[in-house]
């Protein structure tokens, strides 16, 4: 197997991992601080993608599209938190799963009413549509930008959580909510803020991935499950765990799909390899998650004791 192919797949894995991190960060913070499962996180990702698509189409500016997606989705997130999530914090996980599942059904239909059922094909900015040379490797420029933005956002978020006062509250809240309240943190406002940030991050991922995947109803669901796999592996509530698990899942999934069929062809008869290769590749991250939970029932970096 040529090294350039391996390098390309590694970059693809990194890109998937970073995008997963943008989604997982919001999810894991909401879970860590509010002890709440939010299935509707995938819907925020979808809404971000749709807003970006509409604004880019209307204005022709990709940057404007992303900015609008961030602002619009954060607003939707705040509205969702104040209208619904707030009522669910002290309820059982089962109630949270069902209520936010209901939000998925509602959000999908509202999007369908506004934008229709046809997938929207979003063009990438013309300046970035070609490949670039990178250490002798030709790689799509747009994907490289996605990696760059993903990295920058991840670093920004890390600094925000690790270095700022708001971040300190977040960490305090994640490990011990009562302690945070004793410290005088206005948890109500903190929750809304965290939710808005999570929504904005999801929108960034949705907008960036728009040109690579089709923008369509239901796009949030598969990616939501992946993000859940990530935060479960990482240890729910842990940003560090989410980052590492994102990269792990991104790399394992991409490498599995790229190399497993190849590997299986070397090991098994062609008939079996053709069947088993793709099958195992698509199950790989779930196997990974089950294995992690088998040995560490609370994930790699549990945030609470």
């Amino acid at each position, binding site marked *: 197997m040529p090294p350039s192919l391996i390098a390309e797949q590694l970059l693809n894995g990194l890109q998937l991992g970073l995008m997963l991190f943008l989604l997982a960060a919001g999810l894991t913070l909401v879970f860590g601080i509010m002890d709440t499962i939010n299935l509707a996180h995938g819907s925020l990702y979808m809404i971000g993608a749709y807003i970006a698509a509409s604004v880019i189409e209307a204005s022709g500016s990709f940057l404007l599209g992303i900015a609008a997606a961030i602002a619009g989705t954060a607003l939707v997130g705040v509205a969702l938190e104040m209208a619904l999530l707030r009522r669910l914090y002290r309820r059982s996980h*089962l109630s949270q799963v069902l*209520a936010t599942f*209901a939000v998925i059904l509602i959000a999908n239909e509202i999007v369908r009413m506004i934008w229709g059922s046809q997938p929207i094909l979003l063009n990438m900015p013309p300046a970035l549509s070609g490949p670039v040379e990178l250490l002798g490797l030709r790689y799509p420029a747009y994907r490289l930008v996605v990696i760059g933005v993903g990295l920058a956002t991840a670093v920004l978020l890390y600094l925000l959580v690790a270095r700022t006062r708001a971040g300190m509250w977040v960490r305090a809240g994640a490990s011990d909510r009562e302690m945070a309240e004793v410290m005088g943190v206005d948890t109500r406002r903190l929750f809304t803020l965290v939710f808005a940030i999570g929504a904005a991050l999801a929108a960034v991922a949705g907008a960036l991935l728009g040109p690579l995947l089709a923008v369509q109803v239901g796009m949030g669901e598969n990616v939501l499950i992946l993000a859940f796999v990530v935060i*479960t592996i990482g240890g729910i509530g842990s940003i560090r765990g989410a980052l590492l698990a994102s990269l792990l899942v991104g790399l394992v999934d991409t490498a599995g799909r790229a190399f497993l069929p190849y590997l299986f062809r070397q090991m098994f008869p062609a008939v079996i390899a053709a069947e088993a290769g*793709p099958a195992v590749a698509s199950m790989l991250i*779930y196997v990974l998650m089950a294995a992690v*939970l088998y040995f560490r*029932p609370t994930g790699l970096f549990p945030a609470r004791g």
Partner: protein
Amino acid sequence: MRDTLYIPLRPWPTLGVVAALALLPLAAATLGQPFYVVFATRVLIYALIATSLNLLIGYGGMVSFGHAAFVGAGAYAVAMLMPAGVASAWLLWPAALLAGAGFAFLVGAVSLRTRGVYFIMITLAFAQMAYYLVLSLRVLGSDDGLTLSNRPSLGLVDLNRDTTFYYAALAILLAALAGMRVLLNAPLGRALQGIRDNETRMEAIGFATYRLKLLVFVIAGAAAGLGGGLLVSLNGLVGPNLLNWTQSGLLMIMVILGGAGRLLGGALGAVLLLVVEEAIAEHTIHWPLVIGVVLLAVVLFAPQGLSGLMRRRA
């Protein structure tokens, strides 16, 4: 002596409901709507599946987010065996049951080591594994799934007649509900509900909680597998969508709508959801919106579900 967990059998209402269900095909024929018999059969099968999930969620506190996988195991078992020459429902349906039970044993053995939200997530992960497995295996028909040319045969009874199939499904559902009532009234049922309420304390008074939970998980998986086998027998086709995680979500919705932890909760929820869906789907393509709003209202304002509401008024 007061017995808080005992589920009584109320003979007259039970007889009334069973009689009404038994007469339903006749009514459909009289109204000239034979299509409703097939629809009602589907509702009965989902009632069985949702009941099995209610055993896990409502009585065992095991919030499984992957129940559709067991339904799929049973459905694909039947869909694989029929083309291989097995035609008798006496073999096919037990095979579906075993497929559900076997897969539930594997999933449960690993998943039940975890608790709380991790349990929700790991059951989801296993269901996703199963989903992608059938999606990518060509022997299982990949995207398109598998179709059957015939319904299984049940000895002298002809399942190709919709009415006969309806009665077979009804008999199975009633047997399952009766079996569940016996199980819940038995010491095992009390232990299960004790585990739901306080697992650590149950261990501290001598219960092998892991083993008990696994046993019940396998029983529920078996019933779900049988439900899957019945579904594919009825429809003559099965696709990977039957295993999709949204299916698991819909099954959970049925349980909550009907009332988790009530004997008839799963069945009521299945009837409610499928009937409402059928009724709205005629009028708007946006019917999931209505389901979503109803579900939201139930979770926020009537967490005990339909049977909770009925109980409160009674």
